[in-house]
């Protein structure tokens, strides 16, 4: 039985007025509220004054979201993410047929590994999704087919198989907004018993946003809780840093402090209650452009070099003095010319590699240190630029060329999110 019906239609806000959209934003239905905010942001392209005026009627949180979105759209332009919604409907079709549909405008660019297409997710699906953003549609499809939406590369999102997890995947409730999808976090529990009396449970939530191909976030910062309300109307407080006599031996966090994309709440007793409302914000850093440096003449005495007005990139074999200590690992140095090096701290660099042997690793990466005038990094994989042999006589793999990609002109993409009814158990 082949497909009976398929339709992708642009589901526009129709003839909605600014006023009716603002009226649709309320505390009862966050999903509808964020849809209306998205439509208002697009309407503001032509009716900005009216939107800003009506925004004053909104509850504080949604008003702040709307005003922030208006500002961010102006700043990021095409990197802001499209707001058009679609309908996706079909019967007895494979996942890949739906993905192909989504891959056409007004959908989004999706890359699928040919192996997946041939060998995985062969079962037929009936789908009926109305008035959804393309990323939302893709996430919904993935949740039914053991896939997830991976990162953005080359302006496309990638589908990744979940493989065969020990515990079956159970799709969480999602927060969707334009080209942003965030799974509702589930708490990770931790209790510190430190003989101070009345030890309390801490619930730690990890925020894991996925973004569509227009908005490539290279790093995150400033995760903040705007509101966290329990069933009884009380505010949940952030957990204080753990105060202990000895430095901890935790794998991830010696002090028990949450990581960069985690929030830790002091819950007290555990079980039987829920977090009725969790509102957060986090800022993604989106580059304006990617500086690309290709180094393909590597066998000179000085190694390889490429530069422009912004950066000088050099790659060399380790010096004879360093070779016994670091081994055959090419050393890449990036010196910024215009931007102060300290400002680049933690900014990730991607390096694509081509070697003279087959099945060699194709990429590596590191982050700017921000210390001194330049960042020096080993290329992770062993190899050399000029002919060399190991002590046992084997030939060392040679690096033929490399491509260095540096994100520049980083701009903030504040993201707001809202979750309801998270069980605290």
């Amino acid at each position, binding site marked *: 039985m082949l497909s009976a019906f398929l339709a992708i239609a642009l589901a526009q806000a129709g003839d909605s007025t600014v006023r009716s959209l603002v009226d649709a934003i309320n505390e009862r239905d966050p999903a509808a509220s964020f849809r209306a905010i998205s439509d208002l942001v697009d309407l503001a392209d032509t009716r900005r004054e009216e939107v800003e005026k009506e925004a004053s009627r909104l509850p504080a949180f949604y008003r702040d979201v709307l005003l922030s979105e208006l500002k961010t759209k102006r700043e990021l332009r095409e990197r802001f993410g499209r707001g058009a919604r679609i309908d996706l409907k079909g019967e007895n079709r494979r996942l890949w047929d739906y993905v192909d549909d989504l891959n056409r405008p007004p959908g989004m660019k999706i890359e699928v590994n040919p192996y997946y297409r041939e060998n995985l997710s062969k079962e037929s699906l009936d789908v009926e999704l109305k008035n959804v953003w393309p990323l939302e549609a893709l996430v919904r499809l993935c949740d039914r087919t053991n896939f997830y939406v991976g990162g953005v590369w080359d302006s496309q999102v990638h589908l990744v198989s979940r493989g065969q997890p020990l515990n079956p995947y159970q799709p969480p409730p999602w927060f969707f907004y334009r080209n942003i999808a965030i799974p509702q976090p589930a708490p*990770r*529990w*931790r*209790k*510190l*018993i*430190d*003989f*101070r*009396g*009345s*030890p309390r449970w801490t619930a730690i939530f990890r925020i894991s946003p996925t973004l569509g191909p227009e908005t490539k976030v290279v790093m995150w910062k400033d995760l903040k809780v705007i509101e966290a309300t329990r069933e009884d109307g009380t505010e949940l407080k952030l957990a204080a840093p*753990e*105060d*202990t*006599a*000895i*430095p*901890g*031996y*935790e794998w991830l966090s010696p002090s*028990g402090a949450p990581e960069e994309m985690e929030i830790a709440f002091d819950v007290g007793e555990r079980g039987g209650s829920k977090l009725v409302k969790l509102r957060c914000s986090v800022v993604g850093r989106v580059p304006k452009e990617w500086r690309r440096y290709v180094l393909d003449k590597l066998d000179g005495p000085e190694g390889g070099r490429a530069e422009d007005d912004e950066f000088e990139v050099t790659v060399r074999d380790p010096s004879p*003095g*360093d070779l*016994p*200590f670091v081994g055959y690992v090419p050393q890449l140095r990036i010196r910024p010319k215009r931007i102060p090096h300290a400002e680049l701290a933690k900014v990730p660099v991607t390096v694509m590699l081509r070697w003279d042997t087959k099945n060699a690793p194709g990429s590596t990466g590191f982050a700017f240190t921000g210390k001194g005038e330049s960042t020096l990094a080993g290329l992770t994989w062993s190899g050399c630029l000029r002919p060399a042999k190991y002590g046992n006589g084997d030939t060392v793999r040679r690096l033929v060329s490399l491509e260095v990609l540096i994100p520049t002109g980083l701009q903030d993409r504040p993201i707001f999110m809202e979750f309801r009814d998270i069980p605290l*158990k």
Partner: protein
Amino acid sequence: MIRLACLGLFLLFAVAQDPADKVRALADKLGSDEIAVREEAARDLARIGVAAVPELRKAAAESAGEKKTLIDRLIQRLIGFGRPSWVSIEAKDRPLPEIAGDLERQTGIPIRLVGSATEGRATLSAKDTILWKIVEDVCRARGDLMYRFQDDGIEIYPSKFRALPSVDKDGMRFFIDRFIWTGGEDKHPGHFREHAALLVPRGTRVVWIGWKIAEVTDDKGNNLAQEPERGGGVIGGPLVPLDPCGYKVLPTSRAFFHPFYFHRLNQPPPAADATKFSRIRGTVHVAVAEGLEVLASIPTPLSGPSTPSREGIPSLGIPLWKEEDGHLLLHINAAWNADCERNLWRDIKPLLILYEKGGDWQVSSRWYTHSRLSPKDVDRIDNFMNFSWPKGSSAVSLDLVAPHPLAMIEIPFDFRDIPLR
């Protein structure tokens, strides 16, 4: 009258006695025919600690036979047990910085005051009291101060005081800092972990810490330390943490604090409705290297590349080295005779010790992770070793040593009524 004169003379002697004379007098007593006298003298010398070593060396040079053996052994022991942590102090409403300075002078352990603790005052009176107890007592008496261990020192900082389950023995303290209970849901109750530490006199050559947990009973009667068929355990299984129940330690001349955690893999938490641990009982074992048997040594190791080792002969060589970012990276060739206390060495391993100018010393951590004893008579290693190396450091010698003989200290503990809620 004669009595008074005698008393006066005694007091004069007691007050004015030179520390060197005191050590010599005690060393003489080590040659006594009476065991009790010898043991008391040894105890008194232990209280003085490494400061007694120079005079004891002189005494050893002038002695012979059993007395010399006894003094030599005592010298090793004093060095192995570092600088004693017993202190005496009298303070009446004295500023905390002064008290901290006094304690630091007596023990060599830096005590840092943080925030409003720098403006605090305290009253205390202690004689030959272990340092850790004094720090705890000061914080307890104030109530608004707590202590913590950072790097190579103690920090006293503003915080609500909390009494940690602890036990003192032989100048050492074992304490539990906290329990961490993570995860947990209907089917999987979670994971429970204990964080503890051993405090020793500064520079004690602790090379291994082990522990045996005999009982961990919650107030519902579940003993997590017992097998389920013996009536204990929420899920069951001994609490004894790791096989072989030991924690290898990297001694340095500055170290006095050895933190560790212990848990059994997937160790269950106590019963869901338990409110406290009624009893936690067990023993901590501490191996201290009283002596260091030198297998090979390189004097002034960074003066030039040294000869690599040869197969079959205990030896040591440094063909290459470099200093980088506060670290010294040495390329080491070493070989040693493994046919010695094989079972013990399997846990302890030989140590690679770098002696620095000024008397400090440290053991390479990478050496620890890479060195292995094999069934061969001679074992060897060819690798890179890493030492902490702040700018201006200077190396006096690099020694490959066997920690021998070892002193085993047992610290039994029995903690009651530790709240879980």
